[in-house]
C-alpha cells in the first residue's frame, strides 16, 4: 500500500508536467492546425524566466575573500542583501514563485511574436513543413539560450520554506515513512489549477466559446463576422504561457539547461497523440496516465519481471492504444487518424 501510494503520487507529479505541456501543444493543433515542434522550447524559455529573475535578484557586489590567501578570490554579495538585510534574502529565496509574474507577460509576448512572425505563414502548408520550420526555430532558440546562459544546468532552488517533505502517510493514517517533497506536491496542485483555468476559460467565457466554435468550424464562425484568426493568435499566446509556467515551476525539480525543451518534446507529442490530436481532455488524461504508468514501471518488482520496462513503457502503451484506437483516447473521428 505504501509503495502504491508513493508511486501514484510520483506518477501524478510527473503527469502534471506532461499534461501541461501536452495541453498547450494540442490547443495549438486544435485551433491553428499547426504541429508545433517548438513547443518544448517554450517550456525551456519559461524555465529560463525563473533563472533570469533569480540572476536579476542576485546581482552582486564583488568582495575580496580574505580567507583565501594564495590567490585573489572574490565572493559575491547580492545588492538586495546589502540594501535590505532583512527583506533581501527573503525576496531572493522566493525567486521561483515570483518568476510566475514575469513569465506570464513574457511568454504571452513571445507566443504572439512567434505566431505572427513565423507560424501564421505555415497555416495552409503541409504538416511536414510545419514540423521542419518549428523544429528549426527550436534549434535556433536553443543555441541563443546556450550562448547567453551556457551549456550547463543552472541550479535554482525552491523557497527554503518549501524545501522539505510533507508527511503524506501520516495525513492518510498510513505509515509515517511515506513522505513526499513539498515542491512536487505544489507543482501537482499548480498543474491542476492551470489546467482548470484553461478549461474554465474555454468553456465558461464568451471568448473561449467562440474559440471552441472556431475549432469546430472556422469558416462558419468567420462568416458571422468574428475575427477568428485574431482569437487563435491569442490562443497561441495562451499555449505559450501554459508551457512557460510549466517550465518556470519545474526549475527547482530539475535544474534547467538549454536542451530541456527537446528532452520533453517527444514525450509531450506522445501524450498528445495518445490523448487524441486536438483533444484537450485527452491530453490531460493521457499526461497523467502515462506519468503514472512510467512511475509504476520503475518499481523494482516490475523491473525484475520486465527489465528496462521503465524506459519504454510510454512508447509501448502509445503503440497499443493507437493500434486499438487510432484517433487516441479522446480524439475526434477523422483527426490525424
Amino acid at each position, binding site marked *: 500500500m505504501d*509503495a502504491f501510494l508513493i508511486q501514484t503520487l510520483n506518477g501524478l507529479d510527473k503527469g502534471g508536467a506532461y499534461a501541461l505541456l501536452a495541453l498547450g501543444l494540442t490547443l495549438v493543433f486544435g485551433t491553428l492546425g499547426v504541429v508545433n515542434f517548438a513547443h518544448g522550447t517554450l517550456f525551456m524559455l519559461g524555465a529560463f524566466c525563473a533563472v533570469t529573475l533569480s540572476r536579476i535578484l542576485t546581482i552582486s557586489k564583488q568582495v575580496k575573500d580574505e580567507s*583565501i590567501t594564495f*590567490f*585573489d578570490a572574490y565572493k559575491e554579495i547580492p545588492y538586495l542583501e546589502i540594501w535590505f538585510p532583512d527583506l533581501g534574502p527573503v525576496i531572493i529565496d522566493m525567486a521561483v514563485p515570483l518568476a510566475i509574474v514575469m513569465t506570464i507577460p513574457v511568454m504571452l509576448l513571445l507566443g504572439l511574436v512567434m505566431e505572427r512572425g513565423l507560424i501564421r505563414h505555415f497555416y495552409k502548408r503541409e504538416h511536414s513543413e510545419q514540423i521542419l520550420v518549428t523544429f528549426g526555430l527550436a534549434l535556433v532558440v536553443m543555441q541563443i539560450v546556450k550562448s547567453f546562459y551556457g*551549456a*550547463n544546468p543552472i541550479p535554482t532552488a525552491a523557497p527554503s520554506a518549501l524545501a522539505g517533505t510533507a508527511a503524506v502517510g501520516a495525513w492518510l493514517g498510513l505509515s509515517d*515513512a511515506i513522505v513526499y517533497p513539498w515542491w512536487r506536491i505544489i507543482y501537482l496542485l499548480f498543474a491542476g489549477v492551470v489546467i482548470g483555468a484553461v478549461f474554465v476559460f474555454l468553456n465558461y467565457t464568451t471568448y473561449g466559446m467562440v474559440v471552441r466554435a472556431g475549432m469546430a468550424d472556422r469558416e462558419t464562425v468567420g462568416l458571422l463576422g468574428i475575427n477568428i484568426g485574431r482569437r487563435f493568435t491569442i490562443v497561441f499566446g495562451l499555449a505559450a504561457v501554459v508551457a512557460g509556467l510549466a517550465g518556470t515551476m519545474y526549475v527547482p525539480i530539475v535544474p534547467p539547461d538549454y536542451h530541456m525543451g527537446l528532452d520533453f518534446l517527444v514525450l509531450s507529442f506522445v501524450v498528445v497523440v495518445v490523448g487524441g490530436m486536438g483533444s484537450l481532455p485527452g491530453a490531460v488524461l493521457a499526461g497523467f496516465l502515462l506519468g503514472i504508468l512510467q512511475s509504476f514501471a520503475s518499481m*523494482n518488482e516490475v523491473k525484475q519481471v520486465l527489465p528496462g520496462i521503465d524506459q519504454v513503457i510510454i512508447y509501448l502503451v502509445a503503440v497499443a492504444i493507437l493500434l486499438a484506437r487510432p484517433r487516441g483516447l479522446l480524439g475526434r473521428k477523422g483527426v490525424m487518424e
Partner: protein
Amino acid sequence: MSIFDQKYGRRTVLKTGSALAGAAAIAPMGFVKGAYAADFRNDPGNSPTVTFGFNVPQTGAYADEGADELRAYRLVVKHLNGEGDGGMLNTLKPAALKGNGVLGKKVEYVTGDTQTKADAARASARRMIESDRVIMFSGGSSSSVAVAQQSLAQEMGVVFMCGLTHANDTTGKDRRRYGFRHMFNAHMSGLALGPVLKQELGTDRRAYHLTADYNWGWSVEDSISKTTEGLGWETANAVRTPLGSGDFSQYITPVLNSGADVLVLNHYGRDMVNSLTQAVQFGLRDKQVNGKDFQIVVPLYSRLMAQGAGENVKGIYGTTNWNWSLTDPGSQAFVKSFGAEYGFPPSQAAHTCYVNALLYADACERAGTFYPPEVIKALEGHEFDGTGDGPSLYRAEDHQVMKSCLVVRGNANPTNQFDLLEVVNIVPRSETTYPHDLYPGELGPYEV
C-alpha cells in the same frame, strides 16, 4: 682484361660488396638514437610547433568537468611554453621539461567537444588527428568515452592521455598500449572507502545502489558492493538509471520503503547533483531505518559536484582523486597558478588533465622524440612525484597510475566558499595498489 683477373677475385668482390651492403643497411640504427624516419603519424618534423588535442565534454552531463579540464589544459600549455609561474613544472620530480615547449617546439592546441558521447568523442578525436595533426590527445569525462577514444588511439597510433575516467575497465579489460590513465579507479575507491565506512557507519547496514547505466557505473557498483559486503553489509538492491535522467524521483521513491538504510549513488556530474538533491528533497537524510540514521554515500566526489549540490553534500562520504586543499608543494603550486588565472581553485578533473599533459610532455623530453612507441616506453614504469598525489608509478602492465587517493566528506563547517570537501583520510599508494591482472586485458602492440 677484367678486375677479377688480377688482384681481386670475383668471390672477394662479391663478399666485400655483400658485407658493405649489410653494414649500410644496419649502420644508421646502430648509432642514430631517436632519429626515426618521419613516417609516424603527425610527426611535427621541422615545424617550430607541436599540436596537442584537448577533447572534453563541453555539453552533456559532464559539461562542468569539461569546462574545468579545458582551463587546466590552457594553463599547462602556458607552463610548458615557459609562460606564467611554471606551476607543477617547478615541483615535478624527476623532470626533463625546460619550459621551452616540448623538445624545443612551442605547444599549440586544438579543442573538441565529446558531448559526453562515445561516437561524438571519436569523431571529434579523429578530426583532431586527421585535420589538426595532433601528436597527442587528451581529456574527457565518462569512462565509455575514454574507452572509445583509447581504442581510436591504438588504431591510429596517436597517444591518448585519459582525462576523468574512473571505471576499472579503462585500464582493465579495455586497456590499450596508446592509452594512459592518471586518475584513480573504482577498485581503488573501494579500497580507500572501506575502512572509513566501517568506522563511521558500522558493519550492519543495508545498501541500496542507484547506478548510472554504463561501464563506469557498473564498475563502481561492483567495486563498492564488494567492499561493503566484505564489511558485512547487505546489498538490498542495485538499480540502473539512464545517464542524464534529470528527474530521478521514480528511482528514489522505491528506496523509501525498501528497508535500506544506506543509499549509494553511483552517479557523477550532473546526474549526481540531481540524484543527491532529489534524494535529500525526498527526506532520505532525515529518515531513521532499522534503528539507524539513513546515510548517503557518493563513491566518486568532486568539488564541482559539491558546489552544484550545495548544502545537500554536508556529511556525505566519498572518494576523490585530488582536492585543492592539499598542502604538498605540487598541489599548492597548481592551485596558486590556477587560482591566479581563473579566480577559483581547480577541480579533480582539472588536476588529472593538467598532470597528464605534463607527464606526456615530460616523457617526450625524456625519450628525446615524439615517436609514440618511444614516448610510451618512457611513460611505462615511470616513477614520479610532485604532482599532488605522493610518490606515483605509471604502471607498465596496465598503464594505470598507482598513487594515493582521498576519502572525503561534505564539509559541515566550510571556512570559505570553496571549502566544500573535508579530507578525512589520505590513503597511501601502498594501500590502494592492487595486482595488475585483477582486471585482465591486453595492451596491444607498440607499432601500429
